C-alpha cells in the first residue's frame, strides 16, 4: 500500500475543491426578490376582500392625499403618459422588480404606506399585485376596476357593470332558463331567484363598497 502514503496531490486537490466552495458561498448573491409567502398563504390572501379597493375608496384616498399610500400605475408608459390618476407613479408590470422600482416600493413598505395598484383592467393590476403580495409587500392592494371606469369624471356614479369586486357572474339567467326548458312549463325550476331578465346579484356582500 505504498500509494496510500502519498497524500500531497490529494491534499492539493481537496483544498482546491474546498476553496471553490468557499469562494462560491462568499460570492453568492441572494436574488433581490424572494417569496415570503407560501402558495397556500397566498390563496388565503386572495379570498380576503380587504385586498381589493373599490373605485369609490380609491377616490377618497386620492382626495385625502395624506401620504399614507402610494399609487402605482402598472400600464405601459404610453398609456400612462396620456392620462393617469392623481400622482400615480408609473411602473409597468414587466419593470416591477428593477432595482430602482424595488427601492421605491421597499421604502413605501418600510414607511407603512399602502401600495395601491391599478391597471388597464383589474386583471392587469392583479398580476402585479400578486407578485408584490407574494414577495413581502404586505401593504399592497389592487384596485378592482378598469382604468377607463376610474377615470370617468363622476366616478361616484360608476355603473354596476364596472364594479368587478371579486368577479361576479353577470349572465342572463332568463336566456339560460329558456335554454334549459325550451317549453315554458308550469313548474319552473326554483334554482333561479329571479326568472326575469336581470343580472345576478353579487354573492359577496361588501359593506365598504360605496360605488356599487
Amino acid at each position: 500500500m505504498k500509494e496510500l502514503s502519498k497524500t500531497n496531490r490529494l491534499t492539493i486537490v481537496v483544498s482546491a475543491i474546498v476553496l471553490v466552495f468557499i469562494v462560491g458561498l462568499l460570492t453568492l448573491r441572494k436574488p433581490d426578490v424572494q417569496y415570503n409567502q407560501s402558495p397556500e398563504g397566498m390563496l388565503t390572501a386572495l379570498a380576503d376582500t380587504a385586498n381589493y379597493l373599490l373605485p369609490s375608496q380609491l377616490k377618497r384616498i386620492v382626495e385625502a392625499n395624506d401620504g399614507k399610500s402610494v399609487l402605482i400605475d402598472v400600464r405601459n408608459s404610453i398609456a400612462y403618459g396620456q392620462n393617469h390618476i392623481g400622482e400615480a407613479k408609473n411602473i409597468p408590470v414587466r419593470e416591477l422588480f428593477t432595482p430602482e422600482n424595488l427601492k421605491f416600493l421597499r421604502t413605501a413598505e418600510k414607511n407603512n404606506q399602502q401600495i395601491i395598484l391599478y391597471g388597464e383592467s383589474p386583471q392587469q393590476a392583479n398580476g402585479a399585485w400578486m407578485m408584490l403580495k407574494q414577495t413581502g409587500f404586505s401593504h399592497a392592494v389592487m384596485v378592482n376596476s378598469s382604468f377607463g371606469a376610474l377615470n370617468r369624471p363622476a366616478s361616484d356614479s360608476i355603473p354596476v357593470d364596472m364594479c368587478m369586486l371579486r368577479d361576479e357572474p353577470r349572465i342572463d339567467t332568463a336566456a339560460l332558463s329558456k335554454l334549459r326548458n325550451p317549453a315554458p312549463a308550469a313548474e319552473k325550476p326554483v334554482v333561479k331567484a329571479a326568472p326575469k331578465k336581470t343580472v345576478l346579484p353579487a354573492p359577496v356582500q361588501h359593506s365598504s363598497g360605496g360605488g356599487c
Partner: protein
Amino acid sequence: MNKRYLILAIIAVAIGAGILLLPENPRDRELSPADLLNAIDDPSRFLSTDLITDRLVKKDPSLLLIDVRPEAQFKMFAIPGAINIPLDSLLTPSSQAALENKELDKVFYSNSDVMADQAWISAKRAGFEAIFVMKGGVNTWFNTIVNAAEPSETEPSQAFALYHFRKGACQYFFGTGETAAPVTEAPKKPVSLTPRPVQSSSGGGC
C-alpha cells in the same frame, strides 16, 4: 495511519455538515419571482371563448376546463365538460393531481378574468405546465355563445360564419337554440386571433 487522512476526513465531514445547513428544496419546480413576473407579462396564456368552444364541440381530448369559482356558482351554471376546483382548494393534493397531467391543456375560467388569472398565477408559481386562462370567463362565454348577437347585413361574411358557429355550438351544448338556426359547420380556421397552444396532441382540434 497518517495525520493527513485525519485532516482530510475532518474536511469531508465539514463539507457534509455544510450540506446539512443548506436549505432543502421541496419546492423544486417552483418558479422564481423574476420568472413568474415574466410569465405574468406574457399574454399568450389567454385563449378566446370561441377557441375553447371550438375545441369543446370537437370533443378535443386534450382539453381540460377548470372552473375555479366557488362550488355554488359552479352548480348553478358551468360550461359543459368543466370540472370544479374552487380557487381556495387549488393546491390541495387532489387538485394537484388534475393539474399534473402534462398531456392536457388545462384552461382556467371564472366569471371574468381576475379569479381565473389568480388561479393561473398560483399554479404557474407551483411549476405546472400547459395551463391557460379563458379570456373573459363565463360572462363572455355566455354572451358570445349563448346570447350570440346576430351581425347586421353590412358586416363581412366572417362575422356571419362566426355567428352561425356560435349558434351551432349553443345548440350542441343545450340541445336547442333560441332560434332554429341551422347548424352550420364551424369555421375551418380558429375564429379568434389567439393562437392554438403549441403543444398539440393527437386529439381533434383544428
